[in-house]
């Protein structure tokens, strides 16, 4: 009877596309698959790279090298033949730097946001732009099968990002779980990550989690 009820519940969750939240008591957590960052030393310290199907974050202050690491990861993914999406919330992506880093440009979907570094009195405008960028991120994750999806709010005013509801990040984690996509959030402060994702601090490149 109990197993029947469990089967019913699993079927219901499957119908609602929530079956990825199921856990099994008999086995441990499934092995994660890792995507190389493109840097041998970093991969060695991260046990192979950044986990797929998880939200990871890359944070650090300005000029700490986070953009260089981000470009390196994009380059590695595009060189592996994967498609990469970059949600560039502040429209600061430098194409020359990317090309010099080895990014295969025609495999990169560049989505230029409208967030301003200095919004002046138009704070609400910035908030709407951040929400719009998050919406673009969810659309890309919903399309699936991108190898790497980068959400770059590295220079965004921290108040604009902090005002996002906490459930935003939970929703993103649920969308990425079970896929082969690496979702990378790039910011100046800690944003969020999946329980099995990574937090990379650009100043020390120390992994936590």
């Amino acid at each position, binding site marked *: 009877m109990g197993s029947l009820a469990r089967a019913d519940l699993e079927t219901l969750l499957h119908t609602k596309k929530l079956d990825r939240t199921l856990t099994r008591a008999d086995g441990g957590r499934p092995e994660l698959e890792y995507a190389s960052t493109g840097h041998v030393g970093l991969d060695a310290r991260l046990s192979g790279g950044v986990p797929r199907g998880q939200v990871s974050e890359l944070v650090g202050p300005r000029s700490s090298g986070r953009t260089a690491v981000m470009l390196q990861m994009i380059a590695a993914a595009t060189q592996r033949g994967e498609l990469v999406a970059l949600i560039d919330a502040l429209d600061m992506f430098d194409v020359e*730097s990317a090309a010099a880093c080895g990014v295969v440009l025609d495999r990169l979907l560049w989505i230029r946001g409208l967030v301003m570094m200095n919004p002046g009195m138009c704070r609400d405008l910035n908030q709407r732009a951040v929400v*719009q960028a998050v919406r673009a991120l969810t659309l890309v994750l919903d399309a699936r099968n991108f190898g790497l999806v980068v959400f770059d709010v590295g220079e965004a005013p921290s108040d604009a990002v902090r005002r996002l509801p906490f459930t935003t990040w939970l929703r993103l984690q649920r969308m990425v779980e079970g896929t082969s996509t690496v979702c990378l959030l790039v910011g100046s402060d800690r944003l969020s990550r999946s329980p099995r994702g990574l937090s990379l601090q650009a100043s020390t490149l120390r992994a936590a989690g």
Partner: protein
Amino acid sequence: MYACVYSAGSPGPVLAAIAQQFSPRYETRGDLVVVDVRGLDRLFGDARAVGDELRREAADRGVRVHVAIASTQTAAVVLAIARPGVVVVERGKEAEAIAAVSLQILGGPALVRGPGLSGPADGDGDPERVAPQLEMFRRWGLKTLGDLAALPADELSSRMGQQGLTWHAIARGVEARPLVPDVEDERFEASLELEWPIEGLEPLSFVLTRLLEPLSLRLEQRDRGVAVLHVQLRLVNKETYARRLELPTPMRDVKTLRTLALLDLEAHPPAEHTIGIDRVGIVIDPTPGRVWQHTLFARPHPTPEQLSTLLARLGAAMGQDRIGAPVLVDTYRPGAFGTAPFATVHDDHRGMGRTGRMVEHTEPPRPPHPAPTAPALRRCRQPVPAVVALSDSGAPIKVITHRRGFAGGAVLRAVGPWKTSGDWWTDGWDRDEWDVALSDGASYRVFLDRASGGWFIDAILD
């Protein structure tokens, strides 16, 4: 394999009606029709059985015909004109089969008038024009096509030009040009008159689905995909609002097509969008279907349908000009870039090694630079005005901005200047660029605009 059905004096439409019973690929040429009968052997049996069926079909319609079946149109046409009944020629024996046919057949209208099998000369379209040349053949002692085929082609060409070569090809029974089917691509269109006008996109979604489902089925049966989707909305004020949606790749998935059409209408609504719609029409420009082979060794990509839908959704959300693939442009202008439409079809094999095995993450590809030592830039699309103090040598020693988020500070290290200028004939630039590391920990690329004398932060080195 081609079948030629010939009946002297029969009108083309009658012969076309016979051909339509056997294949959609046929071409009428005056009083004969050439039919592509490849694959019909599985339906009727061998080639002779196909020929008998063609003859029987013609007899049912009251037409007496000659039928010839050969692997080239040329041999089939010649034999159908020259021989009564059903003639079947084995592959490779076309020249032998027509060798005994009289040369006079070359003067017949079926082989002279276009669009015939003998190429450009058919355009002349006048049997009397070729009569002197046939008389020349007679004086040379040639009587049959076999005699003509035995002549050297280059000598014939030097004496008779292109026409001589064309006749030589006919005499050898070789193909002069491919079959050009008469029937144009089938039209794929559907429309629906609405009993009550609808307003808004949500009810339109159901109507579009209802129209697209049978069209998609027909496209699948014909192995066609949608190249261009036309959506025609007739408003209650009797005006018609039409949208033309070019798809990046052939597709026929109803859900994708409906979503793309709705997103396009959402981005480009009718001017009188409050007015109801009382008729919805769909017209599809078809194109051959897409053959899609996935590989076992590369990671799957989003399908073209998924990518097309994603790009349309992103375009509606962010603006079409703000999505795409970055492109380097051929200029020295700092920060210049271009964007190209993001391709929906990508080569799956780029991720493979030479052996065809997927490159595993344990074997990371070697980047062209041992990065991340190379600095990466974050561009300020609008350069940030700055106040820069200079040393006696002209190097920056302090950088301050009044913008929130840029603290500024003393310059710990400065590299430069790099002088760059260009486009002086339009909105050019003339700069002295410096890379500076400040005491607050940030590094910037700053420049002196020589035209205005002002300093600006152009990019963040990160």
